[in-house]
């Protein structure tokens, strides 16, 4: 499975430098190494979800309890979590650090991913959620930290889109 271990490690280290203590996730191909790293890290609680919307509740609870969290989700998982993003995170001004694997975009070979790929950015924009396309390893540390900083300052969800060129090695 040509998912980049090196870049997954960079992303994981960036999350650690954001003092992330709780990571919620659902398995997806591009996220396998990140999920394994969280699972093997004794200082992080990995919450394996049944459905992504639970993760919005878990992150909201963690924030109100004063603990930093992050969500690892595929873009279809983001789509599955829209109502809680609107009626919990946006309604109650909850910062969310969402790392979203951007499937179905340029270079996608799986037809079943493509509709979600087309819908992801328009929906993020419709929700007024700031987006950063993470494409370059040199950017990872800085932009994940920036995303968390903005989420906390604005008390708003922020989306970091994990791109094909970062996550996948053909």
């Amino acid at each position: 499975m040509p998912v980049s271990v090196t870049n997954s490690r960079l992303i994981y280290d960036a999350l650690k430098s954001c003092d992330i203590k709780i990571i919620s996730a659902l398995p997806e191909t591009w996220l396998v190494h990140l999920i394994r790293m969280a699972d093997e890290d004794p200082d992080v609680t990995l919450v394996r979800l049944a459905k992504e919307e639970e993760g919005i509740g878990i992150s909201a609870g963690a924030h109100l309890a004063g603990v930093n969290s992050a969500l690892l989700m595929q873009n279809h998982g983001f789509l599955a979590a829209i109502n809680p993003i609107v009626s919990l995170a946006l309604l109650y001004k909850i910062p969310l650090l969402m790392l979203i694997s951007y499937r179905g975009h340029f270079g996608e070979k799986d037809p079943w991913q493509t509709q979600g790929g087309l819908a992801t950015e328009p929906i993020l924009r419709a929700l007024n959620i700031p987006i950063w396309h993470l494409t370059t390893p040199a950017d990872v540390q800085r932009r994940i930290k920036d995303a968390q900083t903005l989420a906390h300052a604005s008390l708003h969800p922020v989306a970091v889109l994990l791109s094909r060129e970062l996550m996948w090695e053909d």
Partner: protein
Amino acid sequence: MLRTDALAAIYPDIEDKIVVTIMGAVAAELYMLGHKEHFFYLEHAMGLASSMGLGIALALPEQKVVVLDGDGSLLMNLGTLSTMARYKPGNLLHLVFDNESLLSVGGFPTATSTGTDLAGVARASGVPSVMEVRTLEQLKEGVRHALAGETLTTIVAKVEAIGPKSFHMDLGLLENRFQFKRALERLQQKKD
């Protein structure tokens, strides 16, 4: 059993705990019994109160967390039972008021009215301690037992489909949100 009587019966046991409630009748009735700054009323996002409670319980393992859920809400997020059961936070009490209806939005019957057994679902999901209660005495006993122990517990309390006359709460959503976060900070400082 009336839910308002059930809440009054357990109020002395939960008033010093972190409480997350669902919207509607449960929120209004708890609020009327006496608001505390460490009570959070999730006025939307149906189904997510238990996920929030799980997030708080995992973040603050030294604190007791009580989630007040309902049959309609829990049916919207049944996966929460399997996620809670997976991590089994012993500081979390999940209390479900099952009135077999969506009372706050017109009283339409839920699937528990046609046989879905939420205690059974919780048990089969792996929640280590599950009970179904029908009287105030059973409820009080169950809540006390769960709060005294260290075992994740789901209690399904069968109640009548009767709610308060008014759902009014003199507390803004964001006021509650910021107050609650501060209250949790203070609780945590006391423990440290």
